């Protein structure tokens, strides 16, 4: 089995959870090596974390380019490392940027690419990825049939499991190619103090039925009692009640938590495309005909403004 490169996504000097999931999945198909780019002084800590989750080697590259230019410096670095290492596969988190980086790396390596996989296993002729398509109405298993397997995987594709390995750091000097857009300013997203939407184990979302921005109070209170992230349907976001960064759906975030609670969401295809792979689905809606009830494990036909506060109080009481 060959070397599997995992591009480690990090923010504020900390490894993001999906990177640990990738390292966990990489062990199924070969020997994981981590790639840590533009982490500055946090690289050593990130490398140590990658080692804890199974990376025998950690390639580290740094430079102002990673922050100052869009996508291309990461493509330069990852391509160079993949070629030098003779990597058997390259795994990247399925974020907007992750997919763009992976696609350009694939093209430079002369390889096919699979995006948005939700599972990965070893096959007779290379890694086999599972994708959930057409708003999760089909599961497709496919493989890269030409070149190195370049695959992006969605957050929550597996649970991270530690498996200590050497985590030996190898510093890499990257030859940057340029031809990139300049990043002239960067404003970090202000943390809500809640879990990241795509990484959360529990998500509570509100939709049209929430009725107003203030209505999201009951959604947030339930989310906080459960330690959950807050999501919103496109209708709620378009109405200006909640930020677009929290939109769940085809054009927002695609989430796959252990538990998804939809409050006042009818369940249009746009929304289903973003949450249908959740393990357990619960809905609260006034309209018993709402299509969301076709998906649920448990549904309550009722007013979310009475059901959610009662549930929140009950959760708090049970958690003591």
């Amino acid at each position, binding site marked *: 089995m060959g070397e599997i490169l995992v591009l480690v996504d990090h923010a504020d000097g900390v490894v993001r959870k999906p990177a640990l999931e990738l390292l966990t999945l990489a062990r199924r198909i070969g020997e994981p090596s981590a790639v840590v780019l533009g982490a500055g002084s946090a690289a050593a800590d990130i490398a140590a974390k990658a080692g804890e989750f199974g990376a025998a080697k950690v390639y580290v590259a740094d430079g102002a380019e990673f922050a100052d230019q*869009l996508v291309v410096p990461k493509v330069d670095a990852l391509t160079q490392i993949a070629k030098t290492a003779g990597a058997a596969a390259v795994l990247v988190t399925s*974020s*907007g*940027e992750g*997919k*763009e980086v*992976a*696609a*350009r790396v694939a*093209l430079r390596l002369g*390889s*096919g*690419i699979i*995006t*948005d996989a939700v599972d990965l296993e070893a096959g007779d002729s290379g890694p086999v990825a599972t994708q959930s*398509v*057409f*708003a999760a*109405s*089909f*599961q497709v*298993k496919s*493989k*890269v049939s*030409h070149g190195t397997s370049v695959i992006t995987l969605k957050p929550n594709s597996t649970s991270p499991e530690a498996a200590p390995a050497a985590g030996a750091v190898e510093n890499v000097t990257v030859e940057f190619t340029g*031809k*990139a*857009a*300049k*990043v*002239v300013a*960067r404003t*970090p*997203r202000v943390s809500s103090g809640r879990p990241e939407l795509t990484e959360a184990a529990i998500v509570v979302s509100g939709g049209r039925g929430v009725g107003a921005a203030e209505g999201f109070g009951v959604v947030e209170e339930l989310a906080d009692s*459960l330690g959950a992230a807050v999501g919103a349907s496109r209708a709620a976001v378009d109405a200006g009640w909640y930020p677009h*960064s929290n939109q769940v759906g*085809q*054009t927002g975030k695609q989430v796959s938590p252990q*538990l998804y609670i939809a409050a006042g969401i009818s369940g249009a*295809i*746009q929304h289903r*495309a973003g949450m249908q792979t959740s393990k357990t*689905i*619960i809905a*609260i809606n006034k309209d*018993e005909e709402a299509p969301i*009830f*076709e998906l*649920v*494990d*448990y549904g*309550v*036909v*009722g007013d979310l403004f009475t*059901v959610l506060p*009662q*549930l929140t109080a*009950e*959760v708090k009481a*049970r958690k003591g």
Partner: protein
Amino acid sequence: MSLRIVVCVKYVPDATGDRRFADDTTTDREGVDGLLSELDEYGVEQALRIAEAHGDAEVTVLTVGPDDAKDALRKALSMGADKAVHVNDEDIHGTDVIGTSAIIAKALEKTGFDLVVCGMASTDGTMGVLPALLAERLGLPQVTLLSEVSLEGTTVKGRRDGDAATEQLEAELPAVISVTDQSGEARYPSFKGIMAAKKKKVDEYDLDDLGIEADEVGLGGSWTAVEAIAARPARTAGTIVKDEGEGGKQLAAYLAEQKFI
């Protein structure tokens, strides 16, 4: 010379229809009604706004697809684009994204452009990587996933809302951009626009015109292979209760039983 803007659009099966796969594992484009991918309407809209602000610009819409894909071009023309390019060849059927990017890059070079505009992703494949692949093939800056975009002189400026941060981006033309559904509501075609679209020019190219060999594209030229497709098992019918004052408590009991609390 006037500013040449080319918008790449895709003809996709209607997401509200019963989308499925054909026997050869490709997306079934026959059994379900098709239309201009909703997310590409935002690309057409921003191209038109940039053209209007510029004053001396020409907007071309470009698609790769079967005969029916002309419907997507007509829609974009009726919104206000000036002309269209349709790459259509039987041998393209089954081409993956790597091959599609090769076809579009050649078609763009043949058409000529200063600015390439794309939507954020198609609504069928939903990969969202084509703009990056075009930038790679054309050796141009990618200024992608923009929620705001403007052209100032020969500089494209835009705002990209990433997972961890919001970035302000800049690049000189020529460049490839993609815009999100947050970039601004797409206009509806007017009656006048619909009538005018019927007279607008649609250039047709096949693979020969673009200098691409049939074996470089299609299912055979694809660098990925589908091993199995299965309809997702229907979710087993859940329990649905009517709230008669105890709905929240009943839910809590369910969550406790499932060990969430």
